[in-house]
């Protein structure tokens, strides 16, 4: 996983609450058995005016000029700004992959759905919870003028706004550590092999039926 320490980038606003993972990456793209190639179809139904056609390359599709990700002033944005309960619905990790492969490194929202938040941390995407008032301010700023640039420092847990103002945030200590170091969860867990084996042995003794062979 790519480490996340300090990131500076442009904010692109998506002013709606309850952005669900179906909206982030629609189901027709879930037929893929790969982990890559989802970027062009991020927010597919909002981003394009014509429906997806497996035979036609994405570059030939008609972009919706009213969708923020397509607006020239937000070109190259790497920080997505949205409203509460971002990432609700389906557990599809493809939603995180699509955001990351599009170039998003951080999503800012007042709150996130649990499974999405979990998934984000595994792919180096920072789900950043900021107070509603700060989010409101960012929405106002990014709607006016030339766009908002932010610097997000995960080590010091501080966001620096383009006007120099600083906002503190807090990320779960374990997740923060993993992101800062770019650590792989499985590697960390396998270091606790002895504890797992000891637990497993006791578990089998007290609930032996859980360890029966699956005969199908």
């Amino acid at each position, binding site marked *: 996983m790519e480490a996340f320490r300090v990131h500076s980038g442009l904010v692109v606003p998506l002013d709606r609450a*309850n952005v669900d993972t179906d*909206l982030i990456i629609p189901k027709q793209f879930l*037929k893929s058995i790969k*982990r890559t190639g989802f970027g062009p179809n991020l927010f597919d139904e909002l981003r394009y005016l014509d429906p997806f056609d497996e035979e036609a390359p994405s570059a030939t599709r008609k972009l919706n000029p009213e969708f923020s990700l397509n607006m020239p002033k937000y070109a190259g944005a790497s920080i997505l700004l949205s409203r509460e309960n971002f990432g609700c619905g*389906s557990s599809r990790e493809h939603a995180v992959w699509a955001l990351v492969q599009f170039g998003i490194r951080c999503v800012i929202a007042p709150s996130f759905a649990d499974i999405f938040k979990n998934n984000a941390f595994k792919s180096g995407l920072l789900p950043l919870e900021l107070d509603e008032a700060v989010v409101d301010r960012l929405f106002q700023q990014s709607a006016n003028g030339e766009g908002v640039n932010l610097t997000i420092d995960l080590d010091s847990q501080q966001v620096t706004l383009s006007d120099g103002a600083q906002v503190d945030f807090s990320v779960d200590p*374990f997740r923060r550590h993993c992101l800062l170091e770019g650590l792989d969860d499985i590697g960390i867990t396998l270091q606790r092999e002895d504890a797992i084996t000891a*637990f497993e042995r006791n578990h089998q003794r007290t609930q032996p039926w859980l360890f029966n062979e699956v005969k199908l």
Partner: protein
Amino acid sequence: MGRTLYDKLWDAHLVDQQDDGSALIYIDRHLIHEVTSPQAFEGLRLAGRSPRRLNANVAVPDHNVSTDPNERALAGYAGVADATSRVQLETLNDNCNDFNIPLIDLADQRQGIVHVMGPEQGATLPGMTIVCGDSHTSTHGAFGALAHGIGTSEVEHVLATQCLLTKKMDNFRVVLDGEAQPGVTAKDLALAVIGQIGTAGATGCALEFAGSAVRSLTMEGRMTLCNMAIEAGARAGMVAVDQVTLDYVKSRPMAPTGEQWEMAEKYWKTLHSDSDAVFDRELVIDASAIEPQVTWGTSPEMVTSIGGTVPTMDDMQDETGRKSLERALDYMGLQQGMKLSDIPVDMVFIGSCTNARIEDMRAAAAVVRGHKKADNVERVLVVPGSGLVKAQAEAEGLDKVFTEAGMEWRAPGCSMCLAMNADKVEPGKRCASTSNRNFEGRQGFGGRTHLVSPAMAAAAAVTGRFTHPANVEAL
């Protein structure tokens, strides 16, 4: 101090607790399907790892299978018409063969939606920790189990380590007391709860459903209720073990027998919240006041009763609310203040991990019997949750009730709930659906979904609009 059901399940699976709050919990059962697993198996291969405990896993294809009975009658995967889907289905088979993961394949009569198959086979048992790369894994909490959805990275993690790196959630109890009115089902209770607390109302919580209205539900009803916990933001929903649970589990193919059963039953009977347990949050709802529910918008929280109306701008408390309402009404093609019972439907879908069990088929058939599909309803799909549900329904003659009414009796799968296969709601069409999500585009690009119970879906199919099931008899 007493412990909640969730506390007990957590304590019984805690492998390791770190000072930073992160914990390692042991996973008893891992359910696998074709859509969220290929990248996890690929990850194992790339790292040279193998599954830690093969018998913890059961795999079945469901999300991306065709429900066309003709296509399914063709032998093997060669019969799968869509090439991309065929590759995904074959990949599940190949991965299970390569890693020796127990698999129920497409041709097997036990094949079905993973959350229908698991309980049917006894792969789901009380007291288990159960995960699956699907958010509706909360369904299995109906058995007094700790069950929740995980992402693909976690699927790989569970395969490799048999554990999940996680954090303890808060305890939230919803007590549904009183006797539900006739025509009010577990689906209506679930939608009413979501309507009250919102789609993020239980984020960060394990949601226990309790109260007399929950205890009087069958296992099918409890599964429907726990299935929808995720639509209230809770990864896990659960119901305490009682005699109803034990009666359902006993004699399932994978349930323990003999001495093991005695031992298990004794333990399972302890799986309830203690009377002095403390919950972080609690909500008491009078179930007798709940009417059949219909969603009107693009989030499950946008719901009201069959006697209700679509909200107006004046009902909204803030700008975000007004914007959401405006966008939802525009997408759904509805007007503020209109009566739910005045909304005509174009399609009906009866199926999904929420409502495709035998009891759901019976409830829908009871309303349909003696009637025909309404003229304005173009298509009605009835999709049983598994091959075994299909066979049972056919043995009871339910398939004939549907087909004689002009409805389609399909092969099992997730179908039009997420519309990954060919079963889709066309743009602008309005569908009464027994599934779980009414998000924009969920059932097909531009499709308009109204979530309802099987009885309500059947009533909409025969009357052509949303109707209280009790009013169908009088037709």
